[in-house]
């Protein structure tokens, strides 16, 4: 508006100006941390549809596509997203506080309830952290079992992600296909430890259970069963024109931004950073196996999709190697009956399906941890939502929430 007023007329831009502004923007892009803040200015009065800053819409906490109880406040200009703000905490159960009143062993099942679609990974991270604190090491057979189950769990988590992500974008059918195949993994879990979702498979110092009769056979059967199924998902989606249009160049996050925000996991790798804790800081028995880290180039939703699809295949590779080479021996290290770690603190992180899952445990020498702090990948990755969707359309917000692969149990803890 004011374009007709004198003095407000724009100065013709010269060449130097342009280069200067360009420099400025690039500089700003890398250094200014405030651009990560959302500028919602929610206290401004809600005006009408025609204003540039008018429609504030609540997506969630009851919404079919926010993967649980995430509430995203969207500021919209028509369909264009001007800014978002995530409101979390609807699933907060105070897991970290509970830890302070439980013994180390008693707290173990609680971590399963954080990322409930990847409970095995959570347990692995916690057990390894406490083991590190106690300065003991699980026996090799236990490590191999842990790797097999964790990778199976990664498969399950990615399959669930794929199904729900595709459903968000409007393709209904992959959901059922992935759930059919995830069922096979859950059956193995059920046979192993009796639980399907919140498995509580590992104990501090190793595994509680020896593998059941026919475990290897089941796993090999699964390994032969699932690759054609992955091809089937890809057949439905990868070359689908609409899928490509919906995912390519949507929710782009640059390499620098991803690192600056602390994003990890497939989201980081899709932006072209080759960072996988299984390779970078090998834990459990991962150093024994041969596998690739798939990375993307553009950091868009499509790259994240391809990275995860490839990760599924790599997981299968790891599982195959582990099952073939699984050593005999004990499954439990010598662990004191009452776990009383020495005074000290420890940070241990693993590569969960969604990214870096870290446990920071402070011990005061008693049977209960003084403080447990979890670094949940979903929580950190969720930060990137705002920068990924700003300027995009409402439909892209859904796609990006799906591609971030968040689990609200883990975000809220």
């Amino acid at each position, binding site marked *: 508006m004011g374009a007709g007023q004198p003095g407000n007329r724009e100065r013709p831009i010269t060449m130097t100006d342009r280069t200067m502004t360009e420099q400025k923007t690039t500089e700003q892009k890398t250094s200014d941390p405030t651009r990560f803040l959302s500028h919602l200015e929610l206290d401004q009065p809600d005006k009408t549809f025609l204003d540039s800053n008018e429609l504030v819409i609540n997506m969630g906490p009851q919404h*079919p596509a926010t993967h649980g109880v995430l509430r995203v406040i969207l500021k919209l200009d028509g369909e264009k997203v001007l800014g978002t703000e995530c409101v979390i905490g609807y699933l907060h159960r105070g897991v970290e506080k509970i830890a302070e009143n439980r013994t180390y062993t008693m707290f173990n099942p609680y971590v399963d309830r954080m990322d409930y679609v990847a409970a095995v990974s959570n347990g692995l991270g916690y057990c390894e952290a406490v083991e590190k604190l106690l300065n003991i090491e699980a026996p090799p057979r236990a490590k191999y079992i842990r790797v097999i189950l964790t990778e199976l769990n990664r498969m399950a988590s990615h399959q669930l992600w794929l199904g729900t992500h595709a*459903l968000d*974008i*409007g393709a209904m059918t992959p959901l*059922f*296909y992935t759930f059919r195949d995830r069922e096979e993994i859950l059956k193995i879990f059920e046979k192993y430890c009796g639980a399907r979702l919140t498995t509580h498979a590992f104990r501090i110092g190793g595994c509680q259970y020896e593998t059941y009769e026919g475990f290897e056979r089941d796993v090999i059967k699964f390994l032969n069963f699932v690759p054609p199924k992955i091809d089937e998902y890809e057949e439905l989606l990868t070359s689908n024109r*609409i899928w490509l249009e*919906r995912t390519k160049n949507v929710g782009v996050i640059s390499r620098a931004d991803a690192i600056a925000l602390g994003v990890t996991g497939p989201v980081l790798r899709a932006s072209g950073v080759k960072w996988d804790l299984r390779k970078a800081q090998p834990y459990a028995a991962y150093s024994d196996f041969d596998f690739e880290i798939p990375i993307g180039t553009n950091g868009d939703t499509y790259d994240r999709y391809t990275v995860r699809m490839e990760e599924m295949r790599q997981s299968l590779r790891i599982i195959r190697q582990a099952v073939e080479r699984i050593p005999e021996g004990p499954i439990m290290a010598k662990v004191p009956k009452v776990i009383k770690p020495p005074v000290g603190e420890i940070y241990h992180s693993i590569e969960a399906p969604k990214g870096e899952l870290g446990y920071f445990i402070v011990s005061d020498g008693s049977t209960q941890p003084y403080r447990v702090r979890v670094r949940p990948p979903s929580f950190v990755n969720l930060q990137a939502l705002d920068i990924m969707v700003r300027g995009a359309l409402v*439909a*892209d917000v859904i796609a990006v929430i799906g591609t971030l692969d968040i689990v609200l149990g883990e975000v809220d803890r």
Partner: protein
Amino acid sequence: MLDYITSYLSSDTTPGQAGNVFWAFVYIMVVFGGISVAVMAMNWLERKALAHFQIRLGPMRVGPHGLLQPIADAIKLMTKEDIIPAEADKFVFWIAPLIILCASFAVYIVVPFGPTHAITDLNIGILFMLGVSSLSVLGVVMAGWASNSHYPLIGALRSSAQMVSYEVAMGMAVVSAVLMTSLHGLGPYGVGVGTSGTGTLSMIGIVQAQQEQHVWFLFKFFPLGFIAFGIFAIAMVAETNRAPFDLPEAESELTAGFHTEYSGLRWSLFMLGEYAAMIAVSSIAVTLWLGGWYRPFPNTLTGETWDLVFSLFPGLSFLALAAIAFVGVRRMPKHPYFRVQTIGLAGFGAVLGLIGLILFAPPMRDRVQDIFWFVAKVAGFMYLYIWYRATFPRYRFDQLMKVGWKVLLPIGIGVLILTAVLGVVL
């Protein structure tokens, strides 16, 4: 009075044209009742077929293989509490589903199920159909606005923009088909010969033109008919707000779009309207490009033998359905719990078989044939709708608009011009 009723039977025109109020009323009842039943059947079929696409079983509990599920759903929806939001505009909220329903049902006035099996034949038939079906946009907009809520409003804005813009491309495709009624250039098979040079907008006239020219317009001016049909087939999916163009009711984004705030009977009216509109646009497509009630291969497989063979199809298809039902009966678990269901399915199969046998009788055979082919073609489209829904992800709004305005519309105009040129040149 009896004369009045029977006199129509010997005439060869639609009741609307014959001015026979009694038969017009009968036809209206039959058509609207039939459409309602078809919507219910479609509901069942969609859930069942979609389920089998998705390795599920779909409804299985209510009746054998869930055959009574639509009835159960209808009863549930009718008895459900009908919620009107406190801040909603009551009157507009109330009338919006009715507008959609009326718009999608009024279209059937001119749908030709056979040469005489239509309620009436307007000489602006196709214009009437397009016009009336475009009225459902009003219902959508009003529903979204009256709900007084953000999601329905966005859904309504989306859907009105979508329906209006796809109507344009749709109109182009329709006009090129209408043009073909007056252009008798040779088709690729050298069959497009005719005498009269007058075009028509009447639905029956369009099918008769195809009959006279011995070609479905789909194959006329070979690629052109196909392209026009393709444009229409895409635009009609967008027009009825179905996957992959179901943005207005994209459940993952807008919960349910313009009918988010509706419940119970009113919601079911929306569904009824949506499915009726799907059948309506499919019948436009069938009439314009697939020869309407005309049987397949009218130009190559001619002669009395073929006529006889094709006239057996209605009966055969019902017998096939009956056979499927009896296979289902055989595969029913032999448990007392399933006895009622087994008997029900067997009865259903018996009724289907009986209908099939009746349709073999010569007088029935000839009467029903037209309707059968029309319905079979429309059913093919219905299956396509389900197939799309099972296969495709959803477009984003800007992409949808791009497809409508930058792809379909220019191609449509091009096809229209080429059709005109070819028709004059050939």
